[in-house]
């Protein structure tokens, strides 16, 4: 059965690019436009990993990671931050919140699929 990845980004085109890269590699993808919508989507679902933007309206990526880690079912959910932010300070925030990986956009699909397969293993 295909592993399910939750992709959270306020840019619909970015979500589509990520989705195409992942479905091409055999993953199943769920999408959310912000952290709050992503939390609502979790709802006990079997999710193998989340890929999350940082700067988003309503609930940003760092807030989402913190909130997801509070949920018992998703405490160990691997989360990859996929963002245009490359500042160390922001990376540290992501790490402190519980993210496992920080990837700067624009990403290479090969690189993304490789990171996903590593984190989903």
């Amino acid at each position: 059965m295909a592993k399910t990845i939750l992709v959270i980004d306020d840019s619909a085109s970015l979500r589509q690019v990520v989705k195409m890269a992942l479905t091409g590699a055999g993953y199943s993808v769920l999408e959310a436009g912000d952290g709050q919508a992503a939390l609502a989507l979790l709802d006990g679902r079997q999710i193998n990993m989340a890929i999350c933007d940082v700067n988003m309206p309503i609930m940003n990526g760092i807030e989402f990671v913190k909130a997801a880690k509070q949920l018992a079912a998703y405490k160990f959910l691997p989360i990859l931050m996929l963002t245009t932010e490359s500042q160390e300070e922001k990376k540290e925030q992501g790490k402190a919140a519980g993210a496992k990986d920080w990837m700067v956009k624009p990403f290479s699909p090969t690189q993304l699929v490789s990171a996903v397969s590593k984190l989903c293993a």
Partner: protein
Amino acid sequence: MHNGIASASSDGQVSSAPQALLGLCAGLLPVWGRHLATSRAQSELAVTEMLQAFSDIGPHINMAERQSQQINDALAQPIGGVTGLVGACEQVLAPVLADANVSTTTAAAIEHVLEMVRHAVGVLEQVARPFQHETQMVAAQVDRMYMGFQYQDRISQMMALLEGDMVKLQEALSAGEAPDLAAWLVQLEAQYAMREQHEDHSGLAENVCASDGDNETTFF
């Protein structure tokens, strides 16, 4: 801002020039803002259209890439096998060829057979080479397309920030405020996400150029 303009003037239009400039800015800013918003919307639409097209042909490209890889793998196996077989034959036949008792005709026949097999391996390798090249080329170009699509997100973020800042300036003008430039710049910079935004802000970048992508990954 207001005081700076007034003190720079020295003729009888001291009082009217700042007002005229304020009026000019108040009139222009919304127009610029609308142009920016339209440009942003059009760049988003352009990418959406391209993505729609790519989502239709993408699976076919992926399939072609996979098939190319499969052909590549399928060819690699017999080539490896035959090459190994040739090597083994050469090893077995080497003492025979070195044997002084073996006739020249027999040795020549063995050499001839070995040469034919070597030639066949060479032909097989030549057949496989374009597939290897095609597989690598398709994968690299698909990666480039995916990366190209992502620049719109950067453009959109940069434009949205400018739009917001223009609205803020427009509001300050309408309220008759003269905000502090240094504080304004600090607030603006605090909203940057991308490296090139910081470089543009400080004017450190030697040339105006698109980011070639940070393309960095950090595992925690």
